[in-house]
């Protein structure tokens, strides 16, 4: 299933005007000039990684069409839904897949905003990277275990 042409990724209008706007425009943001799509995906994976998910409250804003995602990004979104449901059947419900992604991003965007503008010392990218580094080490360790 490639996402249907009419499928859109939504965010809360308030968050589009504040968090997304500042993250993509502020000269202090490492995501300055990044696509909304990328900011959304970062927010989504941060939300998922930290296990925080919050339903969207209206009014909504259509951030981008799901059809602009490349196949890797599409499978990342689908994987989050599958991991969440523990079942492949969720693939039959595009709305549900996107809803799960939107809800993780809805919570994750606040974390991302805080990482960038929260006033903690140091480079925000390094802090995000540090979060991912734990995973890299886990991957390396499991690889080593597998090899022997």
């Amino acid at each position, binding site marked *: *299933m490639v996402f249907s042409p009419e499928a859109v990724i939504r965010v809360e209008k308030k968050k589009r005007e504040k968090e997304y706007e500042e993250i993509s425009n502020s000269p202090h943001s490492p995501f300055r000039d990044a696509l909304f799509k990328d900011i959304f995906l*970062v927010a989504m994976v941060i939300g*998922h990684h930290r296990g925080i998910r919050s339903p969207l409250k209206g009014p909504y804003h259509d951030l981008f069409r799901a059809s602009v995602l490349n196949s890797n990004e599409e*499978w990342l979104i*689908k*994987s989050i839904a599958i991991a969440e449901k523990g079942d492949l*059947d969720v693939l039959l419900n595009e709305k549900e897949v996107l809803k799960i992604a939107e809800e993780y991003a809805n919570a994750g965007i606040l974390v991302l905003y805080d990482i960038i503008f929260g006033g903690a010392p140091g480079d925000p990218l390094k802090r*995000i990277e540090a979060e*991912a580094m734990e995973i890299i080490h886990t991957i390396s360790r499991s690889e080593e275990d597998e090899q022997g």
Partner: protein
Amino acid sequence: MINNQIIFFERTICISRSADGRIEEHEKTWRAAYRIDKNWESYSGLNWKEMTQFNNLVSHILPKGIRSFFFFDGERLDNFFRKGMEYEIKNAIMKVCQIELLDRCIDHLTTKFKELQRNIKGTTPDTDRISKEIEILSQSKEDLESEIEKLSKKIEEAQRNKEDIEEKLRNYTRFNVQDLQSERDWLESEVDKLDEKIGKKEKEVKRHFISGIIFLLGYDALKKTYELIDRKIKGVDQPPIPPDIKDKFLKDLLMHRRCICGTELSEGSLQRKAIEKLLNSIEPLSRISDEAMDGYYKISNILDEYKRFTSKRKELEEEYRELIKERKEKSQRLKEISEKLKGIPVEEIQNLENLRNSFEDEIRKCIAERSQKELQLKGVEDRIKIKNKELLKEIEKDKKQRKLRLKLELCEKSIEELKNIKEEVARSVREEVEQKTKEYFLTLHWKKGAFKDIKINDNYEISVISRLGTECLGTLSAGERQILALSFMAALSSVSGFEAPVIIDTPLGRISGEPKEKIAKSLPKYLQKTQLTLLITDQEYTSTVRDNMKERIGKEFELRYNEDEIATEIIEIRGG
């Protein structure tokens, strides 16, 4: 003389000297007029009768703003493609766009918008405060824009001055000056290329980081999905992927009401119910089976790719550091060249080099200042947008102000749209000029196949791309630059859509020897469907040049100064 009236043509130019001593040209005008008092009974300025029909006629054939692309000075054409002339190129393209009407519309709507904002008073306690804030912000926006424009002009002027000095050094044959300047030209072009590469690499590092982070933080979900599909494929989890039995097969059995073993599958029978249950469990899986298989291989690739995230990141950062190192080395060599030039025991060279360095410092300083101002401007623009939204929200609270709110919204949206249209028109004209310049240049150039493209980028910087794909504007000879300039002017006049004759003053003025003859050979191919008048001096018009151009010469006149009559006579040498 018309109807026994002597017609006088008057040309005026208005200039002033700025505070820093520069001469600034403000306005050029011309008019045709005759005296009401034929015998000049008085010298009163009131006795002139202007003949506006000439101006109107000329304006109809060719509007004032774009005349310079039809009547131009060949000797000054070369200036177009020197460093710091992007503003002139942009200006020329904007003039050809003829978007003054859009500009006027935007100005008018902006004034109207400000007027409407001023009229909002006391709607809610906050409206006055927000309006005042917008007014202050708008004023700083205007101030910043004007400062940015001044800095841009200052940068261009300093770049031209620096370029003039470098041209002098290029022609100085003693004390190895020429070689040092050539090396500097090459190094500067290399540093420019490196800056471009560094910018691209920075983006690549950032892009790799963002996409990498996305997949690394999503690693757990991807891995879980991969394992889930893997178990289905291997049959560990039932039903497997792809299902052992095709759903179509079960549907066919149900439709024909008979099993392959011959058992009848009548409605409500146990056998039928068993097959229906099986179908229900595998049907969804059949529908997602292909997709899951596709995902299985995709996820496997993603997991493999991002295992290499750290090593790839290190690799990219290393490449970035290498570029920075190379740039540093080249910059160091540039400093050494400058020191060598300053050490040459010729006062003129020392002075030129010092002056060049001071222009370079000025350029650097102004560019840094301009970037800072641009950043401030962006911040102010963003704050204006936010304040405008806040203001609209405040007005919404008062129903009586609905009409005013609608007007404000309409103005704001219209300004935005008009700006978009303006940008779109300018972009499309720039692309057309780029295409035409390329066509003319490749036709006029005598080295066929040596160049493959001409580009004018978003910043109105022109590049000439060689057959090998390298940028070579900086290494064009004077003759080639003249060809490029002629091509650019021809492109501008052609894109303007006006079919007026073209006049070029001293087209070969700065060109010597062989290139002059080559350009003369190319000129008959230039602007083929246009009447072309060349004002050419005897130094330019050698017999070879004449022979090379004769095919296309319709009429030839000589302007001969008669000292006795203190007048210039026009003598026809060859008729059409």
